[in-house]
């Protein structure tokens, strides 16, 4: 367990740093976005540079006081929400937002951890490059948090997740020492890969203060289409066909269910939907191609081929960028519709792609045996990542399902495990899925993770209770 931050400790901490590096908690900033818990903080530190982060870590380490690094606070698994135990020092990276260097010719840029994802994207665009990480919270999440959680998002199919977009890191270790690892190399086989260990560690092994990110050429032409498919099996066959015919041009391949569209009709009637007759399943396909190609023609050719193969029955294609954005608005509002309806339980899972067609109906049947529920299954089909969220049947209230919530979650996660899937595809473990990790993770891997945690953070001060159970806690 970590120690409580005494008044004396906090005074020492303040003395060790320039003025104006500490502030009170702002309303809501430590709240779980899904409203389950509120995070604790002895104080919020707002360091301006890596040396100040180092000083804070050194003092916390000496006193055994916990540290929780904070980015945009948009994580969905309580990774940034320390809601029990002694109140930690929350280190907000909000003052470390610089784009330090941009190397267009190397397709790389160095940014500080507090830079907001949207600003990172804009800095890349300013030199006619693409930083492809894109997710719903990009206007407020910070790149350090994206790295710490190995965030996924909409472009993983083409560009990989955050791990694949990072070349180097600068990290403050638990004892305050600084790892200067801001390399810009594509090849660097020099022993253990500390960078990839830090990415996805959710602030439990070090505090990321800066990163070298990979940039890409911007696709100069884009177009989107929504294809109506009969079922998820057709959607997966369509994905294989699309990869064979269009290849790398596919930026996104998103599954949308009729249930999700119903939620939009029920709660956001003004949002324009692509079809007058609501399909049971459809997929949003986004293409980004080079200047010489014509993405609309590629999508039409794919549709014709898929129609001949019986995989699709209808579809629309964007005739302008405005229409493309309207199609994306439908996909991006599905989580809003979900929030408006109010889920019983939400799950961020991944399944081997070829087994998804069996998984989806089997899960729905098992869940409907538990109660009168609806399942909105949607997400990044191309990555095998499903958001498999369970809702009350129309007219019922989620409160009436409190007693089966745990059973719902266990049903989905047990089935996911049986299908060789993962119970956290892109959201991380945080404090929410510590037990799931213990239940489903390979025991050898779990033991190795504990050994690494002990080696790098012997006092257990870094984001204690996230990913792994805190030593001594039950």
């Amino acid at each position: 367990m970590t120690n409580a931050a005494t008044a004396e400790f906090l005074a020492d901490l303040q003395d060790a740093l320039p003025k104006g590096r500490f502030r009170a908690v702002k309303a809501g900033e430590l709240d779980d976005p899904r409203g389950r818990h509120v995070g604790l903080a002895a104080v919020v530190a707002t360091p301006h540079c890596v040396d100040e982060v180092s000083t804070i870590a050194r003092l916390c380490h000496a006193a055994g006081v916990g540290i929780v690094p904070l980015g945009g606070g948009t994580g969905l698994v309580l990774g940034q929400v320390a809601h029990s135990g002694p109140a930690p020092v929350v280190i907000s990276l909000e003052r470390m937002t610089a784009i330090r260097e941009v190397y267009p010719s190397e397709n790389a840029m160095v940014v500080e951890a507090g830079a907001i994802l949207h600003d990172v994207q804009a800095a890349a665009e300013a030199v006619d490059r693409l930083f492809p990480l894109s997710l719903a919270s990009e206007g407020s999440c910070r790149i350090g948090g994206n790295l710490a959680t190995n965030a996924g998002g909409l472009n993983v199919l083409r560009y990989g997740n955050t791990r694949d977009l990072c070349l180097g890191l600068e990290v403050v270790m638990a004892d305050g020492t600084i790892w200067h690892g801001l390399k810009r190399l594509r090849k660097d086989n020099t022993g253990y890969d500390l960078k990839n260990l830090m990415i996805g560690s959710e602030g439990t092994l070090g505090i990321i203060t800066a990163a070298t990110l990979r940039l890409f050429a911007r696709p100069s032409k884009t177009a989107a289409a929504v294809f109506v498919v009969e079922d998820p099996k057709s959607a997966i066959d369509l994905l294989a066909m699309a990869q064979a015919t269009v290849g790398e041009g596919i930026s996104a391949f998103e599954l949308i269910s009729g249930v999700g569209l119903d939620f939009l009709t029920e709660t956001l009637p003004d949002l324009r939907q692509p079809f007058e007759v609501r399909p049971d399943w459809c997929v949003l396909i986004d293409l980004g191609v080079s200047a010489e190609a014509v993405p609309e023609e590629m999508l039409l050719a794919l549709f014709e081929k898929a129609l001949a193969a019986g995989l699709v029955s209808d579809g629309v294609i964007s005739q302008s960028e405005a229409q493309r954005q309207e199609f994306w608005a439908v996909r991006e509002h599905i989580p809003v519709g979900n929030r408006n309806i109010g889920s019983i339980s939400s799950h961020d899972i991944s399944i081997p792609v070829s087994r998804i067609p069996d998984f989806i109906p089997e899960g729905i049947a098992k869940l409907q045996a538990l109660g009168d529920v609806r399942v909105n299954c949607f997400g990044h089909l191309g990555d095998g990542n499903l958001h498999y969220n369970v809702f009350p049947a129309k007219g019922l209230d989620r409160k009436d399902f409190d007693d089966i919530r745990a059973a719902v979650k266990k049903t989905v996660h047990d089935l996911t495990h049986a299908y060789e899937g993962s119970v956290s595809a892109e959201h991380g473990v945080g404090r929410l899925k510590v037990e799931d990790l213990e239940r489903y993770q390979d025991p050898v891997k779990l033991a190795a993770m504990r050994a690494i945690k002990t080696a790098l953070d012997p006092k257990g001060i870094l984001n204690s209770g996230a990913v792994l159970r805190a030593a001594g806690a039950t």
Partner: protein
Amino acid sequence: MKVLVPVKRVIDYNVKVKVKADGSGVDLANVKMSMNPFDEIAVEEAIRLKEAGTATEVVVVSIGEKKATDTLRSAMAMGADRAVLITTDQGVDIEPLAVAKLLKAVIDEEAPDLVIAGKQAIDNDMNATGQMLAALLGWGQATFASEVKIEDGAAIVTREVDGGMQTISVKLPAIITADLRLNEPRYASLPNIMKAKKKPLEEKSADDFDIDITPRQTIIATEEPATREAGIMVGSVDELVAKLKEGGFV
């Protein structure tokens, strides 16, 4: 009743427009092009008239490069019956008067009962072709339409004017120009795009007409609007006042 709709291929509304380095115009190389949004509204209105049984045929016409074929196919995917393309030399800017004269020639041949055009093209914002065409034909015109009804050989058109709405009646044949609120254009469905590939598209050259389309205007310069300068943060009211005085604002 036959309805004719002129459509223009323009730089996509959502593309950030870049001025060529030499200031001679807008950079169109490898830029996404789409149907002029007001023309899309005009096409939608014509198709709705056909669906309502008021119109029997919708003909779309475009004047420009060969690539305007894509725009005409889009209009036919929405529901237009056939298309006429008048090709011009690449890179030549066709001014509204020349467009109106070419359209008049097509109209003399096609004899439509109604022409619905976009109120303006978003590339050069001239807002002139519809009006010039009405004058050349000697037809009535109803510009900035937000509602259209056809009754007893006349179009009852609600117009968006300064400070409110005006409803007028124009005898057919007539020119209507579409404003933003007239309708919301439908999405082109993929099955209809496949069908549109087989719809007739007649191609003519501007040279086939005895019309002088040489530009009468000379573009002197094209410039980006001035960019907003970054602001500064001040620590107090006194400092704010001092800065304002320093800058000569108070």
